[in-house]
């Protein structure tokens, strides 16, 4: 008997190239985001931030702020509402201790935004500063092994004997690679409008998960979940930084509870987002590869050093992809953390895989060069028949097909592997390749309701659309599960008034929410048949997929880059990026393509532009705005093409789909770095690839 968790739908609406349902409100700007929710007489909240990286608040003088016309209240650690939490990040204004520079030490609520801002300026805070420690490096004596790495992977793994493999191999590569500190920087700053009516709390919050946010708020304020409602129909980008609540939503709720009957609006400034909204830890990756003359790996190892915050631990799972990517009998991975006086790192698009496929994929390129083997061929030779880590067969693995198809489309066959040979009008030209991977994740706790309303099928689930296309793609899934035209389906998402949904994270949305919708549709049809009466209603929930016990489930891809490096200035341009992916069935080719090219664009940005520069003297990110933290602009992007293979995977979920929100950013930076090396002969192992890392070698 077919398991209902993977019984396949007949795709009709699924696979259709439909325009986004939320398109018109977005192109006109009439879609209302969290800060813009309707409010008769809003109040405004602005924050006071610590100017020391570590220490203690001795005293605050709020008199001038409180005397300011329009100011309603000032709150500091001396008088803020008590919260129930052991989460060091969210315990805002609960203690006088300062754990990082930029930490919130006060808030001002006023009738106007201008008065709130001026009021926050007028709050005087006196500190007893203490020495701070904010510099990540490998030689620290206090590096430690966390209990688990995000979300619950083993910290270290070891199979076979890596040292023996390295000692006896024909070819050995031992190199260290680094990725920078990155900030998610969604275009919409983290924002909340909060309203307390004396009994119940309503927050319009920009979040990747209304239900998880509600759970956190209810616990913090000691409220029953029924008394907290979180609303979020549109999210102006998140990329992980809106996956877990940050202090803005807590402070907005606290402020609202202090001024009952007023809507309180709070948005981080762009600068505040560099201290308060999470970021990707910098990573230091020591890679070891041991291979025979033909390039077959005997051993692969990664030892990762990265940072966390003293205020809250987050351990990025950077070493995880090395555990399963290539066939090597001897494998070892470790993670060590330095706990610093810095803001808490958190999720950023493909935590683990994104930084964790930089070192390995550049190392593979270096090994290919050393052995005189084509880098595509080297990867093909190390294709594992089963998952090296679990020993399970793959539900589907089409990395080789992606590499072959990509090589074909990119014109790889004509490539001269020798670096630094091609020059066109003063530009050195080269090409590079890297692999992509991302697991198929399924979350627990998602339920959908389907109801017949005025002759339509109304689907309700508290899911999120971060620009990922959920408004449209869930409707496509519902249509096929109900076997009706997609035009007959109304979607309602982004509100805790609807049934519970998991966070939009780990590229799990379609698998998780889609499965709930399919189960609801099947229950609906079973109960009411093809002609349901008005108000007919059924629910369905996501269930465990027993096939996960039998198969390893991942999406794969191959990315190809062309780089041009100016011989005189070292300026790097990437005229062409091609990604070929195998990610199961694609629900909507239009929104899927956008997600994949979007990930690749962010990967290009990571390769060439992005880095948060932490000032060791003060402990803050000095380039904390969009003029100085460079993200790729329209003029930095030329041709970016994403394609996918037809892949039928009956084991992942009823749609046969794998998540695609993150895989696009995995491997891009390595492909670019490899292309830059091919162009110039210079191997840049430390991101971003800026001209200062190329010029000294080019000058020679």
């Amino acid at each position, binding site marked *: 008997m077919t398991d209902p968790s993977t019984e396949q739908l007949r795709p009709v609406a699924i696979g259709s190239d439909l*325009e986004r349902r939320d398109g018109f409100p977005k192109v006109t700007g009439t879609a209302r985001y969290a800060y813009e929710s309707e409010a008769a007489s809003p109040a405004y909240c602005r924050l006071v931030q610590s100017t020391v990286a570590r220490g203690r608040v001795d005293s605050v003088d709020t008199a001038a702020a409180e005397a300011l016309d329009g100011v309603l209240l000032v709150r500091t650690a001396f008088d803020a509402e008590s919260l129930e939490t052991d989460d060091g990040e969210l315990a805002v204004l609960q203690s006088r201790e300062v754990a990082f520079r930029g930490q919130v030490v006060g808030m001002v609520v006023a009738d106007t935004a201008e008065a709130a801002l001026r009021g926050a300026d007028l709050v005087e805070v006196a500190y007893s500063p203490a020495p701070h420690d904010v510099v990540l490096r490998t030689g620290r004596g206090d590096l430690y092994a966390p209990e688990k790495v995000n979300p619950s992977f083993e910290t270290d793994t070891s199979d076979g004997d890596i040292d023996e493999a390295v000692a006896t191999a024909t070819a050995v590569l031992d190199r260290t690679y680094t990725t920078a500190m990155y900030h998610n920087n969604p275009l919409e700053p983290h924002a909340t409008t909060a309203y307390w009516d004396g009994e119940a709390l309503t927050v319009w919050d920009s979040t990747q998960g209304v239900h998880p946010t509600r759970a956190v708020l209810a616990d913090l304020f000691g409220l029953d979940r029924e008394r907290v409602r979180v609303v979020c129909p549109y999210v102006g980008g998140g990329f992980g930084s809106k996956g877990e609540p940050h202090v803005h939503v807590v402070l907005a709720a606290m402020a609202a509870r202090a001024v009952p009957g007023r809507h309180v609006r709070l948005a981080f400034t762009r600068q505040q987002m560099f201290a308060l909204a999470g970021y990707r830890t910098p990573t230091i990756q020591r890679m070891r590869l041991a291979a025979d003359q033909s390039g077959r790996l005997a051993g692969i190892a990664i030892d990762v050093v990265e940072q966390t915050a003293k205020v809250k631990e987050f351990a990025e799972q950077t070493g995880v992809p090395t555990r399963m990517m290539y066939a090597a009998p001897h494998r070892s991975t470790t993670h060590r953390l330095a706990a610093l006086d810095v803001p808490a790192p958190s999720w950023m698009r493909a935590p683990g895989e994104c930084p964790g496929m930089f070192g390995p994929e550049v190392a593979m390129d270096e090994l290919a060069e050393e052995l005189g083997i084509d880098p595509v061929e080297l990867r093909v030779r190390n294709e594992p028949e089963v998952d090296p880590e679990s020993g399970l067969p793959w539900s589907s693995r089409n990395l080789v097909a992606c590499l072959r198809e990509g090589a074909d489309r990119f014109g790889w066959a004509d490539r001269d592997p020798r670096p630094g040979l091609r020059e066109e009008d003063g530009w050195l030209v080269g090409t590079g390749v890297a692999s992509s991977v991302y697991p198929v994740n399924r979350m627990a706790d998602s339920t959908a309701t389907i109801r017949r309303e005025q002759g339509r099928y109304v689907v309700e689930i508290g899911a999120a659309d971060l620009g990922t296309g959920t408004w449209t793609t869930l409707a496509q899934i519902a249509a096929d599960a109900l076997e009706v035209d997609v035009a007959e389906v109304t979607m309602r998402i982004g509100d805790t008034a609807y049934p519970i949904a998991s966070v939009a994270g780990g590229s799990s949305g379609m698998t998780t929410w889609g499965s709930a919708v399919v189960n609801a549709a099947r229950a609906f049809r079973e109960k009411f048949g093809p002609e349901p009466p008005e108000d007919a209603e059924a629910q369905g929930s996501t269930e465990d997929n027993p096939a996960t016990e039998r198969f390893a489930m991942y999406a794969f891809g191959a990315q190809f880059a062309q780089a041009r490096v100016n011989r005189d200035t070292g300026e790097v341009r990437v005229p062409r990026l091609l990604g070929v992916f195998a990610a199961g069935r694609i629900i909507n080719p239009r929104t899927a393509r*956008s997600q994949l090219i979007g990930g690749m664009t*962010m990967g290009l940005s990571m390769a060439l532009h992005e880095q948060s520069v932490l000032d060791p003297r003060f402990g803050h990110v000095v380039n904390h705005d969009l003029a100085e933290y460079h993200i*790729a602009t329209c003029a930095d992007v030329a041709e970016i093409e994403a394609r996918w293979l037809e892949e039928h995977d009956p084991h992942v979920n009823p749609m046969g789909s794998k998540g695609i929100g993150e895989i696009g950013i995995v491997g891009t930076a390595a492909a670019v770095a490899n292309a830059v090396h091919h162009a110039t002969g210079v191997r840049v192992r430390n991101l971003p690839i800026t001209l200062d890392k190329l010029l000294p070698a080019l000058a020679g």
Partner: protein
Amino acid sequence: MDTAITLGVDGEVYRLTVDTRTTLLDALREQLDVTSPKKGCDHGQCGACTVLVGGRRVLACLVLAGTADGAEVTTAAGLADGDSPHPVQRAFLDNDAFQCGYCTPGQVCSAAGVLDELAAGWPSNVTADLTTEPAASRAEIAERMAGNLCRCGAYVNIVAAVEQAVEQATEQATEQAAEQTAGQARR
């Protein structure tokens, strides 16, 4: 300190009193509840607040409302004709030139401005020959749209959308010119 101003916004006329520290962006968003222009940085670094003032693109966060007295402001909401999207908006929809939608109203206003600037023959930083009218190449469009950041990474689709809008505008202009010529010939 307050000052009284008159603003034309998307065809409506508003008389309002603003704090002299208030930006045009905050006046639109907070006082008039015109939330189509977005606030992404408040420092003129991201382009999300782009509106058209007297037909030219302007960053609303860098204009003090008090200095905009008498201005005619068009937002992305005002570019649409009721339920019918402006040709630039239609092109954005056709090319899926957005994801989260937050930078989109600014991109749309900026693109509308680019169309006019190209039609007027204004050069850009990548125009090779300043003595000729710039062609609406992908490089010209990407350069002119580079002040509008998109973190979702929709740039390739944005450029395609602007290309489509330029083509459509050019066709329309050619048709109008042809009609005019035909009309004159009949006379």
